[in-house]
């Protein structure tokens, strides 16, 4: 299939081939060197064999996510690493009751040079998280209303944490009032309805920020096709070593694996994935650790490598196939964790577990369900669930109940779990026994 990419080259060299092959006196064989099919004794499409030019060796899929041009690495995703570190620091502020709304919102919408972060490297950066939250080309460039609504959701998590939870930081939470609850040896801080806003923020960003950027922006054919001419002609971005398309794909990779300890081979030590990452990579690990889903981490890593190699080989069909693999696998990770946490919460409700333990699971589930609206069905323009559908799920498990999580029923959690799993090739039970 990579041979298609060389059709152009084959065409331009046809003249020379015609000259070279005069002596074998078989002009009809020569004609097959430009007919876009592998025929005669060609070893590839229009190349190889006794008459055509030798087939060029295409780039091979590397073992690690390592790509180079003329001996220099072409891989760069420092912007993603920076944004993920920013997001981590924002999460920390949710746990510091002296933080103000202004401080956290300034971190979220960081402006270059502003003294928002403890890590001074982040302060000098011109990047921020908010502009990439509901910021994808495919979903939001023509939908400013939804974009604003999503960003307002995250701003509201910040506001509510500061205005409603922080004042009750040193109170025991009870039904209808915010405060803290024990969860094993941890302490959880919930709003009056039992929701941990930092979990809603964190797990919601897995879809709205990380997932949306990967799926609806940097691996999207609609986005990448803009760079096909330049990529075909090996046009290198000014002052860099990569083409625009290569760089976009790497940015998609960076959102998944930009802060893990081994960015070249993140799955070599799968247990390390959550040591530094609190977003997608962490939950790729969790899905991988469930025997039902073993292999999903390799599938994701392979799709990134194969797709990147296809870009080098200018094989955009292959690239698009890898995009589809990523769409399905990443949506699945988010859906598995949505169902897992709802089921974990359900089991603990039925066993009369600690409210703090139950609410922690449900709060994580809340964020993952929210993230479903940013997934992308393979070969399609839409998500596995619409925004309306995901918000309806959240209403069922949370807003529709008196005092939210305090009164959600196991039946409701089962109904929503089923409604999520049914759109995938796994069952509620498959996801429920997923390893922590």
């Amino acid at each position: 299939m990579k041979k298609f990419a060389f059709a152009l080259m084959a065409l331009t060299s046809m003249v020379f081939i015609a000259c070279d092959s005069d002596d074998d006196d078989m002009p009809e064989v020569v004609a097959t060197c430009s007919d876009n099919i592998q025929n005669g004794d060609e070893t590839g499409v229009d190349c190889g064999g006794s008459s055509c030019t030798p087939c060029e060796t295409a780039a091979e899929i590397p073992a690690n996510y390592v790509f180079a041009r003329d001996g220099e690495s072409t891989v760069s995703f420092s912007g993603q690493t920076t944004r993920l570190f920013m997001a981590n620091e924002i999460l920390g502020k949710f746990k510091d009751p002296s933080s103000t709304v202004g401080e956290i919102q300034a971190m979220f919408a960081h402006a270059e040079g502003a003294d928002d972060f403890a890590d001074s490297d982040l302060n000098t950066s011109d990047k921020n998280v908010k502009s990439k939250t509901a910021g994808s080309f495919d979903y939001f460039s023509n939908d400013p209303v939804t974009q604003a609504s999503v960003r307002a959701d995250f701003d509201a998590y910040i506001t509510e944490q500061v205005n409603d939870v922080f004042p009750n930081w040193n109170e025991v939470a009870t039904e209808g009032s915010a405060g803290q609850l024990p969860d094993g040896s941890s302490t959880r801080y919930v709003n009056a309805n039992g929701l941990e806003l930092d979990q809603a923020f964190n797990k919601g960003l897995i879809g709205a920020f990380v997932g949306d950027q990967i799926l609806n922006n940097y691996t999207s054919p609609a986005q990448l096709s803009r760079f096909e001419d330049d990529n075909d002609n090996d046009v290198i971005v000014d002052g860099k070593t990569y083409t625009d398309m290569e760089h976009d794909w790497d940015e998609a990779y960076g959102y998944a694996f930009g802060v893990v300890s081994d960015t070249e081979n993140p799955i070599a030590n799968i247990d390390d994935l959550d040591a530094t990452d609190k977003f997608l990579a962490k939950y790729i690990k969790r899905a991988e650790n469930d025997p039902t889903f073993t292999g999903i981490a390799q599938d994701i890593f392979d799709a990134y490598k194969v797709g990147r190699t296809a870009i080098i080989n200018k094989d955009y069909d292959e690239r698009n196939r890898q995009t589809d693999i990523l769409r399905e696998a990443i949506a699945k990770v988010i859906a598995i964790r949505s169902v897992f946490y709802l089921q974990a919460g359900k089991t603990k409700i039925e066993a009369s577990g600690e409210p703090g333990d139950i609410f922690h699971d449900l709060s994580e589930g809340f964020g993952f369900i929210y993230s479903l609206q940013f997934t992308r069905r393979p070969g399609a323009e839409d998500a596995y669930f619409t925004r309306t559908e995901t918000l309806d799920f959240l209403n069922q498990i949370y807003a529709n109940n008196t005092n939210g999580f305090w009164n959600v029923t196991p039946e409701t959690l089962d109904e929503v779990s089923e409604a999520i799993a049914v759109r995938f090739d796994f069952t509620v039970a498959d996801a429920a026994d997923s390893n922590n």
Partner: protein
Amino acid sequence: MKKYWYVLSVLFLVLWACSSDNTDETPMTDDDISMSDDDGGMQNVFDRSTLLVNWADNIIIPSYKSFQTTMAQLVIDYESFEQEPILQNLQTLRTSWLNAYKSWQSISMFEIGPAEAIGLRLNVNTYPTDVMLVEMNIANGGYNFDLSSNRDAKGFPALDYLLNGFATDDLGILEKFTTDAQKDANLLYLKDVINNIKSLTDSVIAEWEGDYRAIFVNNDGSSATASVDRFSNDFVFYYEKFLRAGKMGIPLGVFSGIQSPNTIESFYSPENSNELFLEGLDAVQNFFNGASLGESMASYLTTLDRKDLADDINAQFDAARTAVEALDSFRTELETNNPSIAMLSAYDEVQKAVSLLKVDMFSAMSISIDFVDADGD
């Protein structure tokens, strides 16, 4: 000290014999037959209700009562110290604290029912204690010990700090309670921490002496929610997470890769750490053998023709004890050697019992594991 329980236990046996006839007459149900046919047609019969009665009446309740006695002494000795804060009274108070702390090691594993409902273990023995939080609470007053965020500022580890680590030497510690500008707040905190342990454990004991004993003993089936299954899980969970990991594995850095002497139990009186561990190990083994007063995990295994396994488990507990007894204080081991090979070797002996209990014993008893590692966030 253990002998003391036995005396109490015998008393309870006598009392129990008078009140339990109706339970004994409960007809045996299928649940009482421990092995189902599909396990190879074995028909060994083990009466789980007798096991539960022995656990409750000869071990759990007497251990709680024994702890209550040591706490009563701790309160008395605190009051003497408050009235006359002199070195001798400080030393007496320390002795009572240590006795209560040692006695705690015998009840820490009973995190089921009322203890589980209030999270007793984490409220009473979360360490390392958060010294900054302790100091902040004392300075600010108005602390709320119902908050889970205060669990690492109270309990026995906070008392260890207040009684043994509040200043660099005894004189300094005494000054904290006599001439220090905050002496009243310091004394109050000491008192409040002691009373918090006392009131939490009193409430648990009251429930065992009230309705909970019957609930526990009557739940004598063999489902995942039956008392034997649930408590066996709690027992192994305690051994694995609190005795093995908490007292040795975490300080050794087995999980993090970093030796952390500051995470040992009784950090401010490191001469006690090993003893507290050994008390815990003794309690585990005593429980495993039913305090030699009745049915037990060991006798259950024997009924299942697995006396060999019961013997192996006992031998492993003995090997672990021998290995730990040979060590210097944990803190000295960890601060002198990195890696601390001797302590790691002892840990290994402790560790070996985990799979005997969790894999072999559970499999023999057809008990499923109901705990997993907690979510890391």
